[in-house]
């Protein structure tokens, strides 16, 4: 159905081709998954199928791409519109009209189908994708999962033979991602549509694929094969594959179900062992909600550096594992001392707000009965949340549950309609931005929003100025997070992961004791995610309180001490990660599903335990 014949693509003034040596065939009716680290040209391959490369993007395409027998050299994207349906990364950028029904009809109108045919296909598609209740709704009022389904529906109505999707589930919560994947399954099984999709979150899709195309590195030719074979060698792979590789299972399991059938011996071996090594969850195994991951030294005498260091060293769970924790501590050692001094002296306001029972670290933020109303909707309803220094909290829940609202309330963007919110002893909505900067920092969903300057150096200088920090503070952080970034790089030219790190450095310049991150792993590949995890663990070990809103259950399992689940603006669960996450089918990480009922959450935990018992 799709044929690439020795294809290479070179964009405008680039010296190297973006992809080369692509030679592959996708047969009709297959669900084909395109995987690889960021920046290897996945989007280029996808856009070559629908003709946007090179007709729309420019550049030179060598070789030949044919789709359903049509050569993309002689057919423009609009002339392929009846055989290829394309949905890009951001469904909102895809919509031309304003209501669901019009959007579904738009493609057919362009092709000039008869009115009665259009009407029938719109009704069929509404049923197929479960959108019938939403037909008159304005698209902007829909949730992320609904929008993604509308975007898929809008290209399905023309009955394309090929469907091309770029990261269809990356921005979605686990339940919405299931919805979308169920639809894709149905298309492949029942309508015989050929689906080609690229996705970073392999744990969600790899078990559905019939074929996997791996782009291992920029400029390297793709490797094509059965999912299990490719996953055995792929640099990007989901946790279940990592577990399979660790336990030397063959063939490699791709789904939780396959892995569970092979896992009985591993379960027996791990039965008597307490999960450890990974760190985040250890101190909480029995101790309820309060955090003991915080550094007790800061509590006793915040001014004494020796005390603080001793406290951290004595803390069994604070590190990220022996090698990571050590390096993180070394890297940030100078900073933790400044941090402690800063907490002791510069912000006396935070001192009286201590945990009343004396357990855990000092309070970084607290909300009591917090309600926030946005328009006619109660975005938050009587939310009570305490965040202590050194604690990492994952906020989870479906799209629109109020996670982002809670984070932005903590930085004072919304005024509570009832209840109170205190961050570092101050009410954020009544605090000026310059003061608030020292109490709390938020990295928004789109880190680019934080970056205004046109070079990295200018951005760092501005950040130092904003935070009244010594010149070079921010640049120092950037160097540590992104060792190989040039001063003169434009922030737009950075990859998603690099941009996130730059935004994080900008926020950290003011050394806020409370750090908030909104969907930090959106668009990150596994390697970038791994670096982020290391970094955040280091920060937590230094006594930063971290709250992250995320859909990424694997990230939450690796990082968070506590998980708070929001639904319709209310807290429905709040407790140690191991307890909350394991009890919920939607939020459980793959390792926990495979090894249930044992309380293991991540592959490094298991690896560590196996090393210890071997």
């Amino acid at each position, binding site marked *: 159905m799709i044929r690439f014949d020795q294809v290479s693509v070179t964009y405008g003034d680039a010296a190297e081709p973006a992809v080369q040596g692509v030679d592959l065939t996708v047969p009709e009716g297959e669900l084909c998954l395109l995987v690889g680290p960021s920046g290897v040209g996945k989007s280029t391959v996808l856009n070559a199928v629908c003709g*946007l490369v090179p*007709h729309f993007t420019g550049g030179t395409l060598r070789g030949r791409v044919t789709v359903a027998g049509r050569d993309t050299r002689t057919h423009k*994207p*609009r002339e392929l*519109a*009846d055989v290829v349906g*394309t949905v890009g990364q*951001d469904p909102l*950028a*895809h919509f*031309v009209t*304003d*209501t669901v*029904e*019009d959007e579904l*009809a738009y493609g*057919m*109108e*362009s*092709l*000039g189908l008869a*009115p009665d*045919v259009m*009407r029938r296909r719109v009704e*069929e598609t509404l*049923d*197929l994708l479960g959108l019938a209740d939403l037909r008159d*709704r*304005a698209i*902007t*009022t829909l*949730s992320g999962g609904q929008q993604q389904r509308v975007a898929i529906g809008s*290209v399905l109505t*023309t*009955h394309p033979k090929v469907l091309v999707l770029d990261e269809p589930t990356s921005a979605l919560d686990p*339940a919405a991602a299931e919805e979308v994947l*169920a639809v894709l*399954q*149905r298309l492949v099984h*029942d*309508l*015989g549509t050929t689906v080609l999709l690229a996705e970073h979150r392999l744990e969600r899709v790899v078990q559905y694929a019939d074929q996997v195309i791996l782009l291992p590195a920029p400029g390297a030719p793709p490797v094509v094969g059965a999912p299990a074979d490719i996953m055995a060698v792929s640099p990007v792979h989901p946790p279940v594959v990592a577990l399979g590789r660790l336990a030397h299972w063959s063939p490699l399991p791709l*789904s939780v*179900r396959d892995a569970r059938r092979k896992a009985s011996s591993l379960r027996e071996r791990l039965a008597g062992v307490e999960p450890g090594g990974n760190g985040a969850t250890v101190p909480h195994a029995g101790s309820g909600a309060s955090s003991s991951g915080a550094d007790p030294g800061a509590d006793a005498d915040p001014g004494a550096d020796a005390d603080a260091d001793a406290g951290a060293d004595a803390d069994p769970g604070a590190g990220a594992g022996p090698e990571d924790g050590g390096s993180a501590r070394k890297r940030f050692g100078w900073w933790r001392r400044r941090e402690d001094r800063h907490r002791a002296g510069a912000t006396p306001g935070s001192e009286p707000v201590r945990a009343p029972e004396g357990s855990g670290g000092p309070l970084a933020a607290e909300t009591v009965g917090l309600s926030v109303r946005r328009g*006619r909707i109660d975005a938050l309803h009587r939310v009570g949340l305490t965040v202590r220094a050194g604690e990492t909290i994952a906020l989870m829940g479906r799209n629109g549950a109020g996670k982002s609202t809670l984070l*932005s309330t903590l*930085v004072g963007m919304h005024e509570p309609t009832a209840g109170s919110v205190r961050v570092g002893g101050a009410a954020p909505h009544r605090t000026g*931005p*310059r003061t608030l*900067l020292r109490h709390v*920092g*938020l990295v*928004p969903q*789109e880190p680019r*929003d*934080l970056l*205004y300057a046109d070079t990295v150096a200018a951005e760092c200088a*501005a*950040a130092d100025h904003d935070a009244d920090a010594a010149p070079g503070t921010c640049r120092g952080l950037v160097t540590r997070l992104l060792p190989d970034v040039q001063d003169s790089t434009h922030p737009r030219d950075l990859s998603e992961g690099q941009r996130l790190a730059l935004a994080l450095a900008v926020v950290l310049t*003011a050394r806020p004791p409370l750090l908030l991150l909104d969907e930090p792993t959106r668009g990150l590949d596994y390697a970038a995610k791994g670096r982020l995890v290391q970094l955040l663990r280091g920060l937590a070990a230094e006594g930063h309180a971290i709250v992250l809103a995320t859909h990424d259950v694997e990230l939450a399992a690796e990082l968070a001490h506590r998980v708070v689940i929001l639904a319709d603006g209310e807290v429905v669960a709040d407790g140690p990660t191991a307890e909350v996450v394991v009890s919920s089918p939607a939020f459980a990480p793959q390792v926990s599903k495979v090894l249930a009922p044992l309380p293991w959450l991540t592959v490094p935990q298991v690896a560590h335990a196996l090393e210890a018992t071997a």
Partner: protein
Amino acid sequence: MSARVAGAPRATRSTALHAGAWWLWALGLATAASRTTNPLLLGLLIGVAGYVVAARRTDAPWARSYGAFLKLGLLVIGIRLVFAFLLGSPIPGTHTLVTLPEVPLPEWARGVRIGGRVTAEGMLFAFYDGLKLGTLLICVGAANALASPARLLKSLPGALYEAGVAVVVAMSFAPHLVADVQRLRAARRLRGRPDRGVKALLQVGLPVLEGALERSVSLAAAMDARGYGRTAQVPPAVRHITTALTLGGLLGVCAGTYGLLADTGAAYGLPVLLAGLVAALGGLWLGGRRSVRSRYRPDRWGLRAWLVSGSGIAVAALMIWANSYDPAALHPPAVPLTAPVLPLWPAAGVLVGLLPAFVAPLPMRAAGAEAGSGAGAAAEPGAVPGPVPGEPGAGRARVRKSPAPGAPHTKESPQ
């Protein structure tokens, strides 16, 4: 018939009122407003428009624009009053409110006055005048709030389709821009910079424009990939005739209008104008054949559309008639100062404009629908087929409803 009209149905796609009907109704009210300066009548017109908007507007984003138009109307009145206060007014008056120091102006600026005596009569006249303009704006705002602009543009002839798309895209971009500005201003706060004030707004300007540019490029890519701009093969002869008709027609319209307006050419003006119009419309119609587009569920002009548009036109006609019948009542004098009187019959005429509040289809309130569907989407995990390929039982059952996908495809294929 009256029974059918009395119980207005719920607005669905098929019963929805033609967007053009709302515009005709609103333009009728606006025409009426332009024919009077009686503040009581103007207030009545605003009330009528406001009542209909309150009764029949949806929760759609464009429906929220009514408030903005109300504020704009107030602003117009305010500006008119400020100008009359500062620059004086040609209306003679005896009731002096205050006397501002007058700025001496050079000889060549004679006739312009800054400062000086401010009279109650002048201010009242300015208020009447501003209220008239404000009412016009509010009537336009009512149409804007009641009729979906996208649906109105869908009723354009095929040849104008591209222009219509440009407008629709521009209109859907405006809310995105506003959201971007809000988001970036919030982000400034995160950087520790003030998020209010003009400077903050200016500094986010560039990132907002960059974002808008990026979004338009990706929208253009999406539209291209979805078949926008596919054209049918049209024989060259037809293309030439289209060009000739359109150009000739437009020339004819220009010449005809000139003839009508100039003193000498009244005799040939009208026929040339009409011939030009016919030629231009013919050109548009022929040009539409080049586009392969078809239209999905266009709005129908039904009985209710006639009633709604008719009520607006009736208000305008009654007001115009009243103007020739009793002009004094419609234009209460500012000199001498008198309390305006509500003329009974023109007021009754204005009330005809309330008809749409009873005959137009009831809009769906989106609030309930939103809550319902949100819960529905969440409570539906059972409908998701299991992750194991080979047993998509739930899926198959639901798909049965659609006809076999292979056969209709080949038959309906657009080539």
